[in-house]
Each structure stands twice: as structure tokens, then as C-alpha cells.
């Protein structure tokens, strides 16, 4: 298991509510939600750096919304 380091995180009330809601919906601890968010953010950032694009499709795979970070 990789060695872990601890940090203090200051969130607004709204951010904390969003974190708690995600944790409840995804059945994760708040730490796990933030870890997931970091992993996804890094993945997206690296793909975009490589010239890839990120977009969302609807159920019929028709509409695409390009997301730029």
C-alpha cells in the first residue's frame, strides 16, 4: 500500500454539501470521492494535453457537448 499523507481541506458549505451528496449517492467515503475526483481530473488533463477531446453523448449518441478544462 502506498504511503499516504494528510492535508486539511477547507470547503464552503455548498461544496461540503455537494461532497456529502456525492458520497451518499456513490456509496463512498468523502475521502474516496475526492480521490476519485483527482484521478479523473488527472486523466482528463493528460488526455487533453495529448490533443484528445472530452465530450458527452446522450442515450441515442446524438448530441455531443464538448468540455474544455
Amino acid at each position: 500500500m502506498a504511503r499516504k499523507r494528510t492535508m486539511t481541506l477547507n470547503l464552503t458549505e455548498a461544496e461540503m454539501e455537494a461532497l456529502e451528496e456525492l458520497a451518499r449517492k456513490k456509496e463512498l467515503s468523502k475521502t474516496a470521492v475526492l480521490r476519485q475526483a483527482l484521478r479523473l481530473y488527472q486523466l482528463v488533463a493528460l488526455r487533453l494535453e495529448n490533443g484528445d477531446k472530452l465530450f458527452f453523448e446522450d442515450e441515442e449518441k446524438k448530441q455531443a457537448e464538448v468540455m474544455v478544462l
Partner: protein
Amino acid sequence: MSERRVELIRREDNAFVEATMLDGLAPEDLLLIERVWGPQRLRLLEKLLRRGVPRKERPESLHWDWGLKSGELRLLEAKGFGVICQDEWQGAMLVRTASHFTQLEEDKGKPLVYGDYIEAAPWNWRVKVLGQESRFMGVGSILFREAVLESIREGFHGRLGLHALPQAESFYETAGMTRIGQDPDKQDLVYFEFTREQAQRFLGDGGAV
């Protein structure tokens, strides 16, 4: 990198032998694995070609190259595992922990561990058409179990997803995974998932396939 003791079965005498599960492989580990497995793949391919064995009857991961996958380990979400026994890599696995989510309705959208690649060393493949028996048995099973355990360690409650090569579909069905169906976005490979209940049942049964 951390390690745990596991056991494999040596085919020649059916004896349990001690092996090590390594977790958190580095890119260099994947390069080392392929340096040894690559020539073995080529030797097998030569034999298969000499026998005129059609492509669909050849081991389906024959063309894999762990060296090419090594760059993926720079991603925080990617994690490599390997099994070492008698100073040789007997199997390897690469999983992802952030970019895949449950498709089954009951848990839709919840995170899972995605088994991207799971492979035993070429000398552990049973290649009937060449009369080759695996040197060690249980490598794939131990790696698959490790993926479920990783899901629990990540807080995903054992939820696991993967696309199966056709020759491996029966393995995942026997393990108790739900067959979701062919995925046109993944070369029509069949996608399987473990719910948390199925994963817990699998581990409760001893976690063997």
C-alpha cells in the same frame, strides 16, 4: 509496492507452491515482464503457424504487449499487479479505479474497479492444439480475486467490471458475474459485472474459479 503471499498449483505434481502477489507495479516492471514473455509469445505463434492453426483457435492475448501498456501506469487511476513464483512473473493485471462506473440498474453510476488486462505468462497457457499444458494453474483466478479485493480496498464494495475475450467468457460466468452483453465500443467483446452481492458471494465461496 506491497506484497502478499498467495499459492499456485504446480501442474506436474499438483502441489501448492508459494508465490507472491505484488501490488503497485512500476512501468519498468511491465517492460521486464514483456522482455521475458514476448519471445515466448513469438515461439508459440511460430508453432501455431507451422501447424496452420486458424486465428480464432489461437490464444487470444497472443498479440498483447505489456511494454506498450507501461505508460498507462502514470495515471493515478491505473494500478498494476503481478504474481511472482520461482523468480519468474507468472501473471500480470492492470486495473482502473476511476473512469468506469456500474451499468447494472441496481447500482448504476457507482464506481467500480475495471479489469483492463489480466493475463497469465505464456507458459501457463493451456494450448491444447500444441499439447501445451500450463506450468502453474490458478494464476488468472488469483489475479481476478485480487481485482475484487482491490474493489473492496477502494471502497467500491467488490463491484468489478471487465470486457472478456471470447475464450475467457466461461471463466467469468463460472465466477458468477452478470453478463451484460456485447459492447460495440469495445470490439464487440462481452461486458461482465460483479455487483457487491455477487462479489461477496464469490469471496465467501473462497474466491476461486
